[in-house]
């Protein structure tokens, strides 16, 4: 019996102790009419060997390709220690640290993670993870509504340059609480939020403005100006940021005068593989004054009965298991394992390593853009500084090209035609430190061939 240790003798002895004859008797409180005695649609058992072979064959069918998509999930080198450490049984198979004394490992990692996220974002406090970037943005909107003492409108200004999937998730998750999300258009030349678009909102009751940095197009917004505007108009600022970029660019805590109020994002770039879409790890940091409105677990440092330093879950009165219907969020299980991976990843990279990664992202993307635009028939959609993504405009539909590139072993980017039809045949491409000059050349050659043109040398 896979994973079940009972011998026939065990079962006999245990049933005797309980005082029943058969295991079936233990189910006698279930109305007989409801009971089933088989699961005909479920396939029969396989041995570990068989399922391993099956999975390996399915994985091999999918194969491996050179990846040039970002769009919310980024390929970075993950130091080998990260997963060798987080899959240690003591981390991998532990629960949420309800018994602090038996969970000091997890709790100290949470505290270190929170410290790192606070450092990166320039904010005062961080929680110990939310599900992912998209849901973190949604939680930030809800938190802003709770935190903003004067606004009654529950109105959030959301630039269209925010990741479309994140916008959808924010809408789906906040809708029940009557939150209004107003979208802000972008400047077609620079691909960033048009300050003019804000004008119409000046003087109205606003709860918060979301500032993506870099934005979904990879372009760097004028976060300072947007923050100043929001604060001047009584709105909180929610930064939705790529955490790698924060090694180079001003973090939310430095925006405008006093900095943003809440910062969220996805810490997937820290030690979490693309893994076909998840699990990733949403982060959220804020100013100290809002900490009691924050959703999610928070670890705190304290002392034990002997005065020794120790760590424990704190501010639990915000949470569902204490506050139930009045909690800051319903979140319970979060992304602990990935939070640990992110912490170890950051410890290994350190400030210098992370800066180098960010520098390489910037440089590689510039090379990629230049290689692809030099093919001809491809141009860059937007001017201005960007981080590790860029929108390219093509002369024909993107989807069939992406399929053809995939056959060539290249995942060539993300088709923007659904979410930004106004851009025409637009392709979002990305290069991180993992893409070499040779990779970029290979992409350019392949795409050039498909477009019927030679890539420039």
């Amino acid at each position, binding site marked *: 019996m896979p994973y079940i240790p009972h011998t026939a003798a065990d079962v006999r002895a*245990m049933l005797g102790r309980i005082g029943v004859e058969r295991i079936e008797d233990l189910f006698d409180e279930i109305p007989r009419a409801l009971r089933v005695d088989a699961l005909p649609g479920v396939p029969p058992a396989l041995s570990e060997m068989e399922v391993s072979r099956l999975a390996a064959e399915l994985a091999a069918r999918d194969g491996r390709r050179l990846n040039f998509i970002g769009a919310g999930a980024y390929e970075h080198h993950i130091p080998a220690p990260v997963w060798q450490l987080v899959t240690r049984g003591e981390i991998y198979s532990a629960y949420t640290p309800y018994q602090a004394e038996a969970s000091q490992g997890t709790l100290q990692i949470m505290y270190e993670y929170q410290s790192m996220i606070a450092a990166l974002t320039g904010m005062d406090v961080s929680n110990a993870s939310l599900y992912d970037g998209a849901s973190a943005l949604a939680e930030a909107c809800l938190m802003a509504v709770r935190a903003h003492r004067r606004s009654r409108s529950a109105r959030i200004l959301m630039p269209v340059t925010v990741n479309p999937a994140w916008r959808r998730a924010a809408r789906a998750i906040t809708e029940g609480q009557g939150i209004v999300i107003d979208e802000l258009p972008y400047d077609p030349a620079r691909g960033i939020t048009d300050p003019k678009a804000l004008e119409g909102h000046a003087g109205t009751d606003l709860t918060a403005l979301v500032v993506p940095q870099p934005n979904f197009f990879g372009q760097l917004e004028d976060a300072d100006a947007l923050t100043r505007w929001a604060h001047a108009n009584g709105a909180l600022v929610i930064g939705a940021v790529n955490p790698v970029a924060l090694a180079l660019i001003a973090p939310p805590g430095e925006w405008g005068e006093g900095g943003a109020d809440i910062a969220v994002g996805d810490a997937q770039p820290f030690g979490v593989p*693309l893994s076909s*879409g998840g699990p990733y790890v949403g982060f959220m940091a804020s100013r100290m004054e809002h900490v009691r409105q924050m959703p999610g677990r928070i670890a705190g440092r304290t002392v034990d009965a002997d005065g020794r330093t120790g760590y424990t879950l704190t501010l639990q009165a915000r949470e569902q298991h204490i506050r139930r219907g009045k909690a800051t969020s319903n979140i319970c299980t979060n992304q602990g394992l990935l939070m640990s991976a992110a912490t170890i990843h950051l410890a290994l990279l350190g400030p210098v390593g992370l800066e180098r990664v960010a520098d390489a992202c910037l440089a590689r993307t510039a090379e990629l853009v230049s290689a692809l635009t030099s093919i001809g028939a491809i141009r860059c959609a937007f001017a201005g500084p960007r981080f590790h993504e860029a929108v390219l405009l093509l002369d024909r539909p993107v989807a069939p090209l992406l399929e053809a590139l995939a056959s060539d072993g290249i995942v060539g980017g993300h088709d923007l035609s659904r979410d930004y039809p106004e851009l025409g045949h637009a392709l979002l491409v990305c290069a991180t430190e993992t893409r070499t000059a040779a990779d970029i050349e290979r992409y350019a050659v392949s795409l050039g061939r498909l477009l019927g043109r030679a890539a420039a040398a």
Partner: protein
Amino acid sequence: MKKPEPLIFELSQPGRGATAQHPPGVTAELPQRLRRRSRLPLPEVSELQAVRHYTRLSQMNFGIDTQFYPLGSCTMKYNPRICNSLALLPEFLGRHPLAPASTGQGFMSCLFELQEMLRQVTGMAAVSLTPMAGAQGEFAGVAMIRAYHRARGDTARNEIIVPDAAHGTNPATASMCGMKVREIASRPDGDVDLAALDAALSGATAGIMLTNPSTLGVFERNIVEIERRVHAAGGLLYYDGANLNAILGKVRPGDMGFDVIHMNLHKTFSTPHGGGGPGSGAVGVGPRLAPYMPVPVVSKDDGRYRWLDERDLPQSIGRLSGFMGNSGVLLRAWVYMRILGAEGMRRVAEYSTLNANYLLARLVEAGFDAAYPGRRASHEFIITLKRQARETGANAMDFAKRLLDHGYHAPTTYFPLLVPECLLIEPTETETREELDGFVEAMAAILREAAADAATLKGAPYTLPVRRLDDVRAARQLDVAWKPAAA
């Protein structure tokens, strides 16, 4: 003599680094005005320092892999290591979620099969895998109920009924969906009070959230009647299936008449808990709610797999994540279910129930009080230490902390809220009889200790990296992030 493990920041020295992890240096151009002004106060440590630090930290944890961990409602069963290996196959790991579906047919076939298997075990009409934990599955469920009523123009239905035994996420979710929570009492035998239910039902009833077996560790015997009354009142039934361990292959929420269910794959289907996640809260729906499922959902047409999105399911409550949920967790659940097969799943219910009833019987023999005497335990059960607390002064918390010294993780304490001084105990099917017997011995020893020397008990634990922690100070003198010393 061993020193406590410092923070990683305290191991840092300026100029140190795990430099093998640095990519080759390049200089990139970026306007000064956009640049970060403050130093980045991340730790600067060598690779060995990091490895040693996190290895040592890990050793301060209890996990299933090291200890019996009978944390009720959490289903701390063995997490098969193969699930981890296969979810980490390089092709699965390296695939970008937005890569063309043609490059992910193998991966998607696993997810499709998982959807199908979950459909079978729940008896529901359709399954969406996208919610990222139980609470998000609940959210999806209540949001679907809300969408259903709205689509029918039934906009007055804004109340969710929740029994007092419910997990905290249930009322929290209802609120998050903008619903009013109506709590109803349980009877002394653990079942829902039907009179209280009747009193709560009205034209405002959007639905009821039930856990069955409930977190009181008993199966709701009036489930058929409850279903009849709620549906008759125009409400829908939500099944909190965080834990299916007790019913897998024995009874199906769909057959009980539920309209929607979420399942914690990280419990019943044995993906790891990782010290707090990741999870997966897949939802199953009956025919009424199928149009409202959260996207994306995998479909299979002509042998090809593809993702259904808002265009395919225009009434969907929408998307809850950046991509398609916690894929890696889904893969782990798929591996687990394929190894178990139909028979293995039934055995999960049988042996988790056997273990719970055996442990309950033995603890009662040892002098403990069942919270619901006379009832069968499901996969878990509650003992109440009310009597002991009165007689000896040692409460449930003291017992819990002392168990740690015996090398056992504590059961869930003080939940469900309605049972005083309670321990919610879930042994799971993967523990041996010897392990359960060892736990009973430890509990009996603590009981003796409580009578003889409650003060010692109240000082526990003694053998862990720290003694009992000061939670009050943690909240009052909030210290939640290390800050560099002002230089």
